[in-house]
């Protein structure tokens, strides 16, 4: 963690990592999309719409991963009062919300041909929807407070409470779902995935991860610049 302790050092590190992340992103996305569209079999039950999975599943993974990033940085921000950790949470949240929204939209698009309706209260989809609400709350609390240092700590408290709750919500929604849905309803992710489907999925997952790294570092750099401007403005005002 100490390597990030200084914003300037962080920016230098980010500048080194980001070009590589762009290369990885373009490579894996291109190859992954090629595999997903042209070089993977159609599912005998789901047909062509199985290809939605190659976007949906990585998006759903990233929605969880990003919340973990927020939770860990919130913990660091609260315990060590680390300014960069606060910024990391703020920078990650909209990316996570976007991944979550993508998972929801692709899930609904997949659901139309499969279930005959855009929305089914499927256990996984419902959990992702609630995760989306948690992201909204986290971002709203950042916006609702004027003092940024306080807003950051309040948001961190909320993120930690949310991270304790996510497994509980997941479990309870699954329980609720099995009570209300016949077990024969097909899950969005078949538990038996053929190897020929695993490879494009893997490529897309790496592409999504690289995309996250690029946008996350970019947003953190922007936020650091914004705060730097704020400090300079404050000095301008108090120096007069």
């Amino acid at each position, binding site marked *: 963690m100490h390597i990030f302790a200084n914003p300037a050092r962080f920016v230098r590190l980010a500048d080194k990592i980001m070009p590589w992340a762009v290369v990885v992103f373009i490579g894996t996305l291109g190859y992954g999309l090629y595999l997903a569209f042209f070089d993977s079999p159609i599912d005998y039950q789901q047909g062509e719409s199985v290809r939605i999975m190659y976007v949906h599943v990585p998006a759903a993974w990233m929605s969880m991963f990003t919340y973990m990033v927020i939770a860990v940085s919130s913990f660091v921000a609260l315990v060590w009062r680390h300014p960069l950790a606060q910024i990391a949470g703020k920078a990650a949240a909209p990316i996570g919300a976007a991944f979550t929204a993508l998972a929801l939209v692709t899930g609904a698009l997949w659901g139309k041909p499969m279930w005959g309706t855009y929305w089914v209260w499927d256990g996984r989809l419902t959990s992702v929807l609630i995760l989306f609400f948690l992201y909204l709350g986290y971002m709203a609390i950042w916006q609702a407070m004027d003092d940024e240092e306080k807003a950051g700590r309040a948001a961190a408290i909320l993120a930690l409470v949310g991270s304790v709750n996510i497994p509980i*919500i997941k479990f309870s929604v699954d329980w609720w779902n099995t009570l209300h849905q016949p077990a024969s309803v097909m899950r969005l992710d078949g538990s038996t995935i053929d190897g020929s489907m695993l490879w494009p999925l893997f490529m897309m997952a790496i592409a999504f991860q690289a995309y996250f790294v690029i946008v996350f570092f970019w947003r953190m750099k922007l936020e650091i610049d914004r705060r730097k401007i704020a400090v300079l403005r404050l000095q301008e005002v108090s120096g007069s």
Partner: protein
Amino acid sequence: MNASFAIMISVIMRDVRLGWSQGGTGTMSLSFFFIAVTLFPFGVGPEPQVLTRIAPGVIWVVALLACLLSLDRLYQADYEDGSLDDLALSPAGLLPVVIAKILAHWISTSLPLVLLSPLLGLLMNLPAEGYVQLVLSLAIGTLALSFIGSIGAALTVAMRRGGVLLSLLVLPLYIPSLIFGVTGIDAAIMGLDVLPHTALLSAITLVAVVLGPIASASAIRLALE
């Protein structure tokens, strides 16, 4: 330790008295609970079978909203007049004071609602087998609602329009309690074992009882700075 306990009792009594005096939230949430439930027969029609089917869910959802309505005043009233400073400087420490305030919130807003719920079950044509579980699940579940809601109330205490944000923060966290509260009543109506539902509902309440005061106290300290 003894003095801390006396202080906690005092804070509970103080808040219950304030909650039920003029301008308090107690009567208002109770009235809301009653009126909002009676809206549903107008919305979905008065057929007894329909009402029976939705009764547990409707009563639970409305109880949840009634709890939410009263939450934004949980710390805000004391924050506005400065007495939150005094509460934070109590020799008992902020954490016991927060626990006392949450318990007082439960006693003054949720407990009356729990006691009134059989009457609403009657209006919603709830089958006779469901009543015991209705009261039990509401009693256990609303405790979690107060303890979780306290976190949201503490986070939004210094905001002028904190109420809307409060619902956004707190409602997603209420879903597990809602699920196990309602499935328990459904199980009771169908003559199934209610123990797993009640046990899971209680487990969530226990987590909330542990987590809620700690998170609330740190959020209040943040607001007082």
